[in-house]
């Protein structure tokens, strides 16, 4: 079997398939406990129907922040492997935005690490969402205080 190198961090414009990502990671590193999170574009919001979601990002900084968060998680939760795939650009409803997967020896570490990565990337990775509504209007998504509260759980 040829060796497949799996990048820990992928920031891409193209749509991805979470099931394929899972397969790829598992081929690289089987483990005892795997937790994955996938976030998809929702078709609703507080003020109307979302037609598309646009994600602006800071190329370079995005990859380095996600890489650092992954390394922190890896050390803190003793991970065997981890992987983050995050998209930017214009996304349609029901398309995946982000996929985070972690492999650990025990389920509690795996759940904690996956939540750590989601909670920290929400507030630390330089992405900005803009919702394009079906009526043609667009608005920047405001940062949520609930997200910064969840981020605080992980301060050491």
């Amino acid at each position: 079997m040829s060796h497949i190198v799996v990048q820990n961090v992928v920031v891409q414009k193209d749509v991805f398939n979470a099931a394929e990502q899972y397969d790829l990671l598992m081929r690289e590193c089987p483990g005892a406990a795997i937790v994955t999170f996938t976030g998809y574009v929702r078709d609703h919001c507080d003020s109307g129907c979302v037609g598309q979601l646009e994600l602006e990002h800071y190329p370079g900084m995005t990859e380095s922040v996600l890489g650092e968060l992954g390394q922190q998680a890896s050390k803190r939760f003793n991970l065997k492997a981890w992987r983050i795939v995050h998209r930017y650009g214009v996304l349609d409803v029901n398309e995946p935005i982000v996929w985070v997967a972690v492999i650990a020896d025990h389920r509690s570490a795996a759940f904690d690490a996956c939540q750590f990565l989601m909670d920290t990337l929400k507030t630390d990775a330089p992405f900005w969402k803009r919702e394009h509504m079906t009526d043609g209007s667009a608005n920047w998504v405001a940062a949520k205080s609930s997200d910064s509260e969840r981020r605080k759980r992980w301060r050491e």
Partner: protein
Amino acid sequence: MITVRFFSMVREALGVEELSVELSDSINSVASLKRALADQNGAIWDETLHQPNLVHALNQRVVRIEAAVVDGDEVAFFPPMTGG
């Protein structure tokens, strides 16, 4: 010379993505750079760069506003992140 970048709502409000700034005795930190940009470019810049939640990065890392800036650095201003 340093590069200054703006993202998201900040970029949109200022109508600028990127600019070059000459360092000087009075522009030598993120704080003094921000003050100079806010003071010298009119009300919109003043308001936008003084929004309470503004985030500032130096060489692609979020830093404290006091951080010193040297030639060749990249400084960025943007609103709180909303990824994931």
